[in-house]
């Protein structure tokens, strides 16, 4: 890697680090409650309190986001399958 590319990367890293918002929730706490958040989201409700904090974590943690989006996609599929059956 050239040194100018490294410089650019360092600056990009600073930018990304500074612009990201913060969530003090850990990934484990997020994992514990993301099923509740996903159920709320499937029915289009806005999370409050503890679940709002989980949502903030999901927004700034790309790993938890991937897991949450996967769960949400499956729940939506299940809920539309149930609507079709009914």
């Amino acid at each position: 890697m050239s040194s100018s590319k490294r410089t650019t990367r360092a600056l990009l890293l600073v930018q990304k680090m500074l612009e990201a918002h913060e969530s003090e929730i850990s990934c484990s706490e997020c994992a514990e409650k993301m099923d509740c958040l996903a159920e709320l989201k499937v029915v289009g409700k806005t999370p409050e309190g503890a679940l709002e904090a989980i949502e903030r974590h999901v927004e700034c943690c790309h790993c938890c986001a991937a897991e949450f989006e996967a769960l949400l996609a499956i729940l939506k599929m299940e809920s539309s399958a149930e609507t079709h059956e009914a």
Partner: protein
Amino acid sequence: MPDRTNDQWLTDLRSSSEERDSALHDLRARLQRGIFFYLSHERSDLAGLAPEELQHMAEDFSQEAILRVLDNLDSFRGDSQFTTWATKVAVRIAISELRRSRYKDFSLDALTAEGDLRESNLTSINSTPPDRPETVTEKSEVLNRVQEAFREVLTPRQRAAMEAIILEGIPLEIVATQLGTNRNALYKLIFDARRKLRLRLSEQGMSPEYIMDLFES
């Protein structure tokens, strides 16, 4: 598939009769369907795999999830539907496995080996139009400060980890393994580093906007 309440799921899965077999059968079908949907609809990186292969993966992940669910029945508090909770377990297993196999050749040391950033080629970052001499000086100054701040907040290895996670989107757990730590601790490290970096740079009168403007102009 019969609709069970959360209590029925727990009772059936804890029983030692036909109810248990039937509950396991239904749970397995549910998880397989969900994971197969995820693998086939939500993962463009797996688009080259045949449906049978995805189905096979879905079966494996679901089987592992069932074992974990059964081991952890006591930790289910009933805050969500039992099937949602079990799907969450299965999703985590599937994604973790996929991450491990996708990044099996990733090496943090390769990133660290690139060394510290240097300012020698600073003027070439934005070579058109060429910077005025005072801009070059200002950039060099800011870059030194940024570098100092980084050194204060992170070790070179931690900074490489940060680059891997933030710039390249490498999953936390992959980087955590290579750092000999865990995902929670690594998330905390990033969180603390962000806070310290922000504080340190703002103490020196350098806002994120100022820094980026300087190098983008």
